[in-house]
């Protein structure tokens, strides 16, 4: 048995309170106030009284489940294996050419879909596909950073079970940073398509090189061109420029070919996720809602919309000039972006990079509006929220998004007094660091300096500010009562489960060590985070009986995916990501094919608790898809998003089988 499979089972649960928080409680603005659990009393449209949404980082569907065979009778999945792109052992299959990757001759302006005449197929001789490298992945163990040298050092992490802490000690590359990743079989001469991250020297327990995952890059990688549209693929997105864009958009980026890597779930990689898919329900048509990265996707998940620059009082204002993107190529380069920044005014087609996307949307065979308001500069890439973790407004000098007026699902739940919580790993430590940073320098608080001067709470740096959509919102983060009631730590989620005080809606986000992000985390670490949560639930059968656990990711992280993409508006959709649904009403290794994205989670919540769409422009207004029997993946009423109701069978007797065997 490999160490990867040995690691999974029979773990004990241990919880620790946040590091020394009690010793600082007198000087902290955080609060231990527990949300009251009125969840069971709330009227719901289904037997589900609680949802827990756990969000990992940066893994796509083919990347994770590309080699997976559903166990349910008659169930099918659309993935690398089912399409014959790869064989069951991960080697190229008979239809490997379906994933052929291309390079593109230099163009004068940014393009959303490359001209077909300018595309040249990568090969293994004259036009070699960029190869995978160790971009950002740790070379060796460290006494003070993952992978740690031993379990005692790794115990700085408290949000996994003791038996899993050893996962934080393994997986260093043994290679220098930014070199060819020779752990991958065939690296250096891999053919121009997907390759398996499996071999004597590499598994899902290893750190791997990262890829860039930003808006204009992701849009370009999808290569959506209406000239390539077919009945089966009406959006004409070919997903064939993944390594090319990574290799060319910047003179300094070192992502190269990592985005074509995938794991083999049929051969013990991502083994917990596979086990859950074998026992519950998996969607093979669930998408990241926003092209690009973490912040915008989480924001869309929390609001059904995109964030925009404002005066902090709700009024749109131009973003600072140094934050406005210009993806047009620098003269004389193949594809090097002029200004790889974070905001765009997409209602103005004269803005760099906007017209190709708007033109494409206008030519789609369905009505997809950009949904960009005049004079609004939208956040398309990671930008810190306008509040620190302790509620302090971030000074303008730091370039954070000013406090946001965009309505969140938290606001909608509050209006009906339905309990909810956002549980961010290492949040309590982050709030303490924020207190210290503000105390040290109110005009320009420095969280890094605070972490360096407070080692006991340094892990607070691993709390993901941009993952918390409510941390952007004036209505939540700017209100001390709201903040204390709803913004919490992972340990609070576990405690709420143990004490039967779980809110109706809970959103769990692991810290940066456990989120599964390539190069800084691993899939098995996110699995360990999930295991910790579902083990706590397993110990509470009554609570488990009316709880649905959704396990998904913020984005595919730049990884290639072979699935159909439905462009909805200027901002997305992007590639498929896994969505697992665990509940007594979603058992049986079912694979659901209905088109959905992050906003579908909002739609489920809204349907179950009888809420209205958040605003008149949010994506939760979109209808559920209708489909032809001949193609269950492509909505005939685009743009459309499923509300995930059909991932449950509420007419069946609840099946209280264990989450894992």
């Amino acid at each position: 048995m490999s160490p990867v499979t040995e690691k999974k089972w029979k773990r004990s649960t241990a919880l620790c309170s946040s590091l020394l928080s009690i010793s600082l409680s007198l000087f902290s603005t955080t609060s231990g106030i527990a949300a009251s659990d009125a969840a069971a009393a709330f009227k719901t449209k289904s037997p589900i009284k609680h949802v827990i949404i756990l969000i990992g980082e940066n893994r796509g569907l083919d990347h994770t489940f590309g080699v997976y065979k559903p166990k349910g009778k008659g169930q099918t999945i659309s993935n690398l294996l089912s399409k014959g792109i790869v064989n069951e052992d991960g080697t190229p299959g008979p239809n490997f050419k379906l994933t052929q990757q291309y390079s593109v001759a230099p163009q004068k302006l940014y393009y959303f879909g490359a001209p077909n005449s300018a595309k040249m197929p990568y090969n293994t001789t004259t036009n070699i596909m960029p190869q995978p490298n160790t971009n950002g992945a740790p070379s060796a163990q460290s006494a003070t950073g993952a992978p740690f040298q031993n379990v005692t050092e790794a115990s700085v992490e408290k949000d996994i079970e003791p038996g899993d802490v050893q996962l934080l000690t393994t997986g260093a590359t043994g290679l220098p940073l930014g070199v060819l990743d020779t752990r991958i079989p065939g690296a250096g001469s891999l053919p121009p398509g997907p390759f398996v991250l499996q071999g004597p020297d590499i598994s899902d327990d290893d750190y791997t090189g990262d890829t860039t995952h930003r808006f204009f890059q992701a849009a370009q990688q999808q290569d959506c061109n209406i000239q390539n549209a077919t009945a089966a693929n009406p959006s004409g997105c070919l997903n064939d420029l993944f390594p090319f864009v990574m290799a060319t958009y910047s003179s300094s980026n070192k992502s190269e070919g990592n985005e074509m890597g995938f794991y083999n779930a049929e051969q013990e990689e991502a083994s917990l996720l596979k086990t859950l898919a074998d026992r519950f329900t998996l969607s093979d048509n669930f998408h990241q809602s926003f092209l690009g990265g973490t912040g915008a996707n989480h924001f869309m998940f929390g609001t059904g919309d995109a964030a925009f620059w404002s005066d902090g009082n709700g009024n749109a204002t131009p973003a600072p000039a140094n934050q406005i993107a210009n993806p047009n190529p620098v003269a004389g380069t193949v594809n090097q972006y002029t200004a790889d920044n974070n905001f765009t005014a997409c209602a103005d087609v004269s803005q760099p990079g906007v017209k190709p996307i708007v033109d494409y949307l206008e030519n789609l065979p369905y009505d997809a509006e950009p949904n960009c308001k005049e004079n609004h500069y939208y956040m398309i890439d990671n930008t810190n929220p306008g509040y620190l973790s302790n509620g302090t407004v971030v000074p303008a000098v730091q370039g954070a998004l000013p406090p946001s007026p965009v309505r969140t699902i938290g606001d909608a739940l509050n209006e009906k007094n339905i309990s909810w919580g956002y549980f961010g790993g290492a949040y309590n430590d982050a709030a303490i660091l924020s207190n210290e940073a503000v105390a040290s320098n109110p005009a320009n608080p420095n969280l890094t300096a605070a972490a360096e001067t407070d080692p006991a709470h340094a892990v607070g740096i691993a709390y993901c500010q941009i993952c918390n959509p409510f941390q952007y919102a004036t209505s939540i983060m700017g209100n001390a009562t709201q903040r204390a009631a709803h913004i919490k730590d992972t340990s609070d989620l576990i405690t709420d489960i143990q004490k039967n005080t779980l809110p109706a809606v809970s959103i769990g986000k692991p810290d940066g060590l456990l989120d599964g992000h390539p190069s800084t985390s691993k899939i098995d670490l996110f699995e360990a985070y999930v295991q910790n949560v579902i083990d706590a639930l397993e110990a509470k059968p009554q609570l488990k009986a009316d709880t649905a656990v959704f396990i998904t990711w913020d984005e595919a992280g730049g990884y290639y995916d072979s699935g159909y993409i439905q462009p909805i508006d200027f901002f997305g959709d992007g590639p498929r990501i896994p969505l697992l649904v665990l509940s007594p009403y979603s058992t049986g290794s079912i694979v659901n094919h209905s088109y959905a994205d992050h906003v579908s989670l909002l739609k489920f919540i809204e349907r179950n608790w009888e809420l209205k769409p958040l605003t008149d422009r949010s994506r939760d207004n979109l209808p559920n898809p209708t489909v032809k029997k001949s193609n269950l993946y492509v909505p005939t009423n685009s743009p459309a998003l499923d509300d995930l109701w059909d991932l449950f069978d509420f007419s069946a007797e609840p099946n209280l089988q264990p989450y894992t065997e």
Partner: protein
Amino acid sequence: MAPVSPRMGLAGVIRFAPKSNSSCFMIRKFNIAGVLILAVLGSPAMAQSFSAGLVTIGASGGQAGELGKVRVAGSKVRIDTLAPQGDFFVLDTIAKSAYLVRPGQHLFMDAMQSSLWTQLLVPVDPVDPCAQWQVMAKIAGAAQNGGEWRCTRLGEEMLVGLTAIKYRLVSPGGTESTGWIDPHLKFLIKFRADDGTGIDMVSTEEGPQAESLFAIPAHYSKFDPKQLIERIKQSDVWVEPPK
């Protein structure tokens, strides 16, 4: 013989007060010779050897919970915290060090600003406590921007049977509070933030403290957060401000 507590009055006169059973501070086993020697030498950084409990006080003035335990021997202080249980701080005003020790992980680290108490719970000169607190603030990195501890003597105040010196305090970050120093112990025995919350020292027991309590086992590794911070900065959870 019933235990009694030594008292050094503010004028330097040694006096003895009977132990009050209701006192928070009273269970003391004293060493008169030691007191006399210290009184003569007047060492500002040396306190009595003693141990005491630490309790937190809520805004209403009532005891809110236990914070931990403090042990003092000369220039050395150990503060045990109840959560996470087993962790403790070791301070030394002569060596100018302050460490947080994590026995569960076989780690120790510079305490820095992990706790305000590493600045305040150290032996002080009762007539100038801020001098020592400022030294500890510098060790903690809490005085980097020119801030300093400032103490304004408010007078003497009887605290359950003993005379303490009451000070108005301003931290290097500008936060105001009030502290009471026991001139005999040369130690902060009561602290109140302006919202009424604070700590009290309770169940004080004078006597020698084992040297091993203040030692860090040789096989423990020192934790430096810089590498952890740099690793995290490679991920999406960290966003550098735009240039």
